[in-house]
């Protein structure tokens, strides 16, 4: 494409055709305020905060929406622009319940930031009367929706439809009545919401936030009678730093463990342990299904099998493709396996009364809050996971406690249930479960390592929305001769729009996969709805690199090598898919209509 030349504030800029004025300004090092714009989403051009003046044009131009053209002369700070920008912000503030000091998003709000920068003195405008009778939708386990904080930028709407193929959130009504409504104005808990929190992750204000459990967890930590265990998901350690002043992609595993200890958790344990366990259970489940279908001619066992770690994906498939529920691995997610074991195996080993154990998890995810609340997730006889915190909530707690995070010396996880392998940490990136499963399954079948350099299964990696790979199985051990020469076909999808594409292909008979990994969030858990804000493709790329670096640095990189895994089968579970496993580690799914 040919380049376009223009000037911005008299600075000459050259940029590819098709780019916007906003892109050109960025290139020239000029910042323009935006609100509705988000790098992951299609252009909306509706907040109008980014307007600029174009010489010769009758109106101001929304720089995020208008493509550059040859010879354009743009001014981003003319009197007209400055006045309009301030007026627009004042208008938005008059529609917004500016209860900043009491707001969960205080100091993390894009509207507040722009107000501080461009408004900075009181406005004459009249607060809109609708603000006097607002109500907050707290029906969902995961997401709190407060319309009085909403600025109608529609980032959430675009996220839900474009990235997640759901449209649980949509624009309703027009004019002064216009608002973002959950389908048909129902409570969030009663619509086809997967709780993925991608909308929360992109909301510029306090309109959409996670249901937080900071107070409850603090309370438990202060209760002398409680033994509070915490598990941390793979993707937390590579993103927590962002919420505490580190650059994206900085790994803070050891500091995180140290901080959790300072916060007073009685045991700092690792979801990565149960990620390794998931590989044992899910890998065995896959091989069993393959055998039943390929050798025994069993028509009951469903292929392709799909992963089940992502609770957003689970709720999605329960709503949208219920006919494929038998295809979903029956394995609980690593969080829930951990929860079930914390109040059984761990309690026994540590000689604790499970009734006194408070099980907390730190997750990159908001859907995990919903998952923990599911009635099935009580196989230990208690609520398996009591409280789910997001990465963001943990960052807050660390700040609240006055911990100088960057100065912390690295500490290691406690044991038991704190040891893990590199195969577990890559669960946090799209393709990671697939890669971890292949590392183990291939070795079980052939007795040899996967034929990829340094165990790095490159075809499973990357940010392509849907990826496919085929692995030819050769040189099988005696038990697995039936697989000799078979080509195992796998697919990986992240973001539910991509999951939808893959499932649609399966449904229409256009795909013959054996195994599908689906993560609800873009980039996998590292791009989860509970991760620090902001998010963008570049930030997620940095986090992915950190995940793979973490894996590469681990002494053990295959789940079946984890000594604690070998021990738990030896002492407690017996064998994958065994009786105890069935009771504690596997679950069932339900077809869902509206909730």
């Amino acid at each position, binding site marked *: 494409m040919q380049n376009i030349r223009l000037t911005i504030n008299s600075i000459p800029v050259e940029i590819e055709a098709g780019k916007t004025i906003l892109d050109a300004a960025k290139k020239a090092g000029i910042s323009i305020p935006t609100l509705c714009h988000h790098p992951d989403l299609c*252009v*909306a*051009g*509706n*907040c*109008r*905060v980014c*307007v600029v003046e174009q010489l010769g044009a009758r*109106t*101001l131009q*929304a720089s995020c*929406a*208008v*493509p550059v053209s040859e010879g354009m002369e743009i001014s981003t700070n003319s009197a*007209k622009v400055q*006045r*309009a920008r301030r*007026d*627009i912000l004042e*208008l*938005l503030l*008059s*529609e917004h319940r500016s209860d900043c000091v009491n707001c969960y998003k205080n100091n993390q709000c894009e509207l507040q930031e722009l107000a501080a920068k461009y408004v900075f003195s009181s406005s*004459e*405008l*009249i607060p*809109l*009367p609708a603000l006097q009778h607002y109500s907050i939708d707290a029906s969902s386990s995961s997401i709190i929706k407060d319309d009085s904080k909403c*600025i*109608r930028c*529609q980032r959430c709407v675009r996220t839900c439809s474009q990235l997640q193929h759901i449209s649980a959130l949509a*624009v309703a*009504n*027009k*004019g*002064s*009545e*216009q608002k973002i409504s959950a389908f048909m104005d129902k409570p969030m808990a009663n619509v086809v919401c997967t709780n993925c929190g991608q909308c929360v992750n992109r909301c510029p204000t306090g309109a959409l936030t996670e249901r937080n459990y900071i107070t409850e967890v603090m309370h438990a930590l202060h209760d002398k009678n409680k033994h509070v265990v915490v598990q941390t998901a793979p993707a937390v350690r590579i993103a927590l730093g962002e919420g505490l002043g580190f650059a994206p992609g900085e790994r803070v595993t050891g500091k995180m463990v140290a901080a959790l200890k300072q916060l007073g958790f009685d045991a700092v344990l690792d979801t990565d342990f149960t990620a390794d366990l998931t590989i044992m259970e899910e890998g065995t489940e896959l091989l069993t299904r393959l055998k039943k279908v390929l050798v025994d001619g069993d028509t009951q066992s469903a292929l392709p099998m799909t992963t089940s770690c992502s609770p957003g994906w689970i709720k999605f498939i329960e709503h949208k493709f219920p006919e494929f529920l038998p295809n979903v691995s029956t394995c609980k997610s690593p969080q829930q396996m951990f929860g079930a074991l914390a109040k059984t195996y761990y309690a026994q080993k540590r000689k604790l009364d499970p009734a006194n154990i408070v099980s907390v998890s730190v997750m990159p995810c908001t859907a995990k809050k919903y998952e923990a609340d599911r009635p099935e997730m009580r196989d230990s006889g208690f609520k398996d996971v009591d409280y789910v915190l997001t990465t963001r909530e943990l960052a807050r707690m660390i700040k609240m406690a006055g911990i100088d995070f960057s100065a912390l010396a690295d500490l290691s996880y406690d044991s038991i249930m704190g040891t893990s392998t590199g195969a577990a940490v890559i669960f946090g990136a799209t393709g990671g479960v697939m890669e971890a499963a292949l590392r183990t399954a291939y070795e079980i079948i052939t007795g040899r390592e996967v034929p990829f350099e340094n165990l790095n299964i490159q075809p499973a990696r990357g940010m392509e929305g849907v990826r496919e790979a085929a692995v030819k199985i050769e040189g099988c051990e005696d038990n697995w001769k039936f697989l000799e020469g078979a080509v195992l076909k796998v697919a990986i999808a992240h973001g539910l729009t991509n999951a939808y594409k893959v499932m649609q292909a399966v449904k229409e008979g256009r795909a013959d996969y054996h195994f599908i990994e689906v993560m609800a969030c873009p980039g996998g858990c590292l791009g989860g709805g509970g991760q620090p804000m902001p998010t963008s493709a570049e930030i997620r790329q940095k986090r992915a690199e950190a995940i793979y670096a973490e894996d590469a640095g681990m002494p053990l990189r295959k789940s079946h090598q984890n000594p604690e895994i070998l021990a738990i089968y030896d002492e407690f579970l017996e064998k994958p898919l065994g009786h105890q496993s069935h009771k504690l580690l596997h679950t069932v799914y339900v077809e869902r209509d509206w909730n």
Partner: protein
Amino acid sequence: METLTNNSTLRKTDLIFGREHDTLSLLKEALQREKDEIINELIESGLRGRGGAGFPTGLKWKFAKSAPGNEKYIVCNADEGEPGTFKDRIILEKAADKVFAGMALGGYVTGARHGIIYLRGEYSWMRNSLLLKIDDMNTAFKQLGLDFILEIRMGSGAYVCGEETALIESMEGKRGEPRNKPPFPVAKGFNNKPTIVNNVETLVYALLISHLGAAAFAAFGTEQSAGTKLFSVSGDTPQAGVYELELGMKLSDFVAEFGDGDTKAVQVGGASGFCVPRRKFDQTIIGFEGIPTGGSMMLFNSHRSMYHVLHNYLEFFVEESCGQCSPCRVGCQQLLLGIEAIKARKKPASYLKELIRIADTMRLASKCGLGQSVGNAFDSIVEEFKEEIIY
């Protein structure tokens, strides 16, 4: 058609409703001509869109013709939502065949093979009779060897759906919200294909110009406002109705004809137009060099409270803004709240200045013509009738 009084200085014409020609023969005749010739004729005629924005019709067709691709559309904008406008309804009742032939002509010239009439929801009562006429027309097109087919889509009842890109969104089954421009519909319109959107009246004139010639049309009107146009006259007038008049008239002449002897102001162009007070009637030209109008002419006599007039308009906009962009959605509400607060003495009269500033920001920064034109009525009424607004 209504007639004028005998001593009127206005020049009434009867191009649209005159019945000297059989519509299909007009079309047949036009189809014999080169496409570029017709485009040039339209450009020379000076015909500008009659839907309000006044874009030169010949140019629009030229752009659409040169837009790449062989799937193109021509859409007749029959959403007629501007308060005080009802001339498109009369055209569709009395001369729908000319509208359809005008669309077919546009199709022939630009390569669009599909014509869609976007009919205002409130006009659904005429849908069946229009469908019958469309059937006949579609048959006639075939007989003429023209690869062109017409259909009707019903509007969804929102004023903003008359805005051409909102109209297209609505036809695509989405919320009727205006799009970002560029791209304009002639480049990417319905289904992202090149699309001409023309007002009902524009299409009729395009057909007539291909027959009468540019010069005959441009003999009417003024340099910038060539030709004639339909006016919907309403309000405090003994002669409410639709009139075809030469463009470029003085508002004083118009009021002399249509006023009730006590006219204090005329709202030219509906809620999104301007309010002209009596003292300016003499210096106001109706047309693109003065105050343009999509046809709505609303007269107010001295019994009217201009506060109420403005209040009504603002209520209309508060409800009819699509609500997507912040200056318009919130701005409309602030203007309404603001004049109420001043009336109730909760804000000082000087607050009007803030409101005028907000209206100007809406004009500069709103996404579409709706938000951009709220300030027209607001400023003109507030400036000319300040006392009525404050006290």
